[in-house]
């Protein structure tokens, strides 16, 4: 539209002459859309035959009504809060969806375009409204909207489910162990909406006797969650009778092989027994990075431990390593979300991790965990590409 508030008739008749009044009336009344004009306050001034017919009202009756009187009460609120302000401020409003009321009270779903006409002094002089029957389109839109709402509800449901599952699999904080300083952290990959496969668990086997498990089920999603739960609770159940990590791992391996899932899993198990001046730790690993040991008076090193993955080889066997943790010693368990984190400068890697714990804080397990987590996240610009699980065990110096 070029400066004219209302459309003008084009000289489109065959002869090229202007419309005669009868043609103009036909064009107005028999247009395939409804058309009405109102004064600036919304009182109907003129209405075409098409709209009067659609609404089963006489044009004469309609000119005693306001446009809002044709709307449903809910539509009136929308008109007053959106349509009218938009028209006033923009001079036009397009594709507004409303229902118009027929004389018998039934509704006609329409789309409305409106433009504001202005007098020479700029004040509103009237409103032109074109009305398009949108019954089919609106019912389609309603279906679309309902489908969208269903999809959103189901997505929200799935997210809640994933989060709930996640929360049952990852204890938020490890239990307090007397005379041992335990801290753990878990960060799911990405936005955390998908159930990951990293887990950890700390539970008591008896007086001064504890089991620590940290593992990583390959893959993500519900199936990984099932295997995560299976492994975690199998370890708990078997640990009642079998306490040596290597034997426990053998039995978990059997259980996983018997399970229908073809997922495999890595894990590290640490059995801790209180002894004079510290803790005796028996450690077994299954396809998992061996823990790091930070002695109070020595450089950090990775324990020399290997063992096959869980759920792949039948009759796999495992070996335990036994060490003594004295005052000031710390052991760090982690998943490969740490070392395989990739950033602009490549993989995070074992060496970087060792160097970092060496130069980082020692003494408090929470500080060790925080330091690693912060740096690994920073390395990936804050977004973990894989799940990260960390668990540190420190023997207090006093």
């Amino acid at each position: 539209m070029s400066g004219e508030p209302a459309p003008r008739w084009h000289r489109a008749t065959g002869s090229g002459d202007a419309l005669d009044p009868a043609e103009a009336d036909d064009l107005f009344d028999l247009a395939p859309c409804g058309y009405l004009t109102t004064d600036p306050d919304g009182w109907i001034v003129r209405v075409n035959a098409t709209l009067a017919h659609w609404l089963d009202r006489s044009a004469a009756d309609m000119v005693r009504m306001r446009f809002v009187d044709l709307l449903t009460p809910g539509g009136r609120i929308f008109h007053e809060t959106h349509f009218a302000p938009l028209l006033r401020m923009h001079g036009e409003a397009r594709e507004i969806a409303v229902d118009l009321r027929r004389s018998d009270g039934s509704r006609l779903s329409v789309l409305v375009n409106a433009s504001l006409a202005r007098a020479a002094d700029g004040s509103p002089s009237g409103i032109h409204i074109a009305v398009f029957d949108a019954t089919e389109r609106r019912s389609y839109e309603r279906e679309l909207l309902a489908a969208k709402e269903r999809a959103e509800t189901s997505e929200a449901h799935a997210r809640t489910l994933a989060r709930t599952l996640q929360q049952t699999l990852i204890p938020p904080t490890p239990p307090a162990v007397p005379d041992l300083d335990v801290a753990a952290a878990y960060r799911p990959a990405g936005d955390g909406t998908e159930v990951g496969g990293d887990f950890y668990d700390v539970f008591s086997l008896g007086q001064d006797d504890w089991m620590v498990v940290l593992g990583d089920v390959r893959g993500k999603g519900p199936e990984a969650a099932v295997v995560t739960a299976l492994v975690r609770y199998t370890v708990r159940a078997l640990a009642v009778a079998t306490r040596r990590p290597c034997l426990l791992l053998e039995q978990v391996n059997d259980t996983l092989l018997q399970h229908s899932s073809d997922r495999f899993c890595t894990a590290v198990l640490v059995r801790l027994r209180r002894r004079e001046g510290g803790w005796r730790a028996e450690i077994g690993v299954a396809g998992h990075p061996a823990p790091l040991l930070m002695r109070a008076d020595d450089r950090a090193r990775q324990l020399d431990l290997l063992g096959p993955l869980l759920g792949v080889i039948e009759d796999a066997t495992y070996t335990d390593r036994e060490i003594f943790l004295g005052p000031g010693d710390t052991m760090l368990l982690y998943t490969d979300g740490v070392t395989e984190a990739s950033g602009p400068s490549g993989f995070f890697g074992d060496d970087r991790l060792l160097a970092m714990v060496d130069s980082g804080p020692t003494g408090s397990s929470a500080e060790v965990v925080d330091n690693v987590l912060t740096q690994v996240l920073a390395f990936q610009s804050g977004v973990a590409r894989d799940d990260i699980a960390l668990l540190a065990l420190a023997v207090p110096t006093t």
Partner: protein
Amino acid sequence: MSALIRHDVSVSGRPDSPPIVFVHGFGCDKNMWRHVAPTFEQTHRVVLMDLMGAGGSDTSSYDEERYSSLEGYADDITQVVEELELQDAVLVGHSVSAMLVAMTQLAVPERVAGLVMVAPSPRYVDEPGYVGGFAEEDVEELLDSLASNYLGWSTAMAPAIMGNPERPELGDELTESFCRMDPAMARRFATATFRGDHRDLLPRISVPTLVLQCTDDVIAPVAVGEYVAQHVPRASLVMLEATGHCPNLSAPVPTTQAIADFVAGLDDEAA
């Protein structure tokens, strides 16, 4: 985050003069005041804000629970008033914001000198002994209407309402956000607005209050304006010869005049 940033607050006029805060209603944004607020820049410190979800507000801090009742929106206004350290402020609320500014007055009475309620309604749905103008199912219909319009707005409407070559004086900042809101936020705001009952607020308002009532308002009919004026202890009712629910757009001159007269009366009272 500062409430001033969160609500895209603009402050103009005379810094040392008494403050006047304009709050828009459901549907659009602070541009609703562009024919009214500038007049007060000669005599007042003029504050404009966008309610959460509207106009230039920052929705990154949106909280479903907070914005499921009007108290959350009112608390935002209170935060703006407190952050600007306003004293003796006149709060002007259009439509639902008439109730919001009332809540703010009750929250920080020491900062507020007067209220202006433009086209207020404390309760939109009829009840035995009370005529609000709407039935419960009408509200449902409004929510449907919002849903079907926002469906179109989220996609096809966007280019259509961008830019307005015919009236360049409106400026570009108006075109993109005016009358647009995230559909879920709009629905929640509409539900809190049109299903709520805030009549119990009225007798507790402790400052002079101007009720501006349009003669022909299909949302807040005259009887409702009269109800408000009767139940607010220090209220005066001024009828505006205006059609519709937005006299700030359809009758800006008498609207501005009525507010200016009220504000002048407050100053006399204080003097």
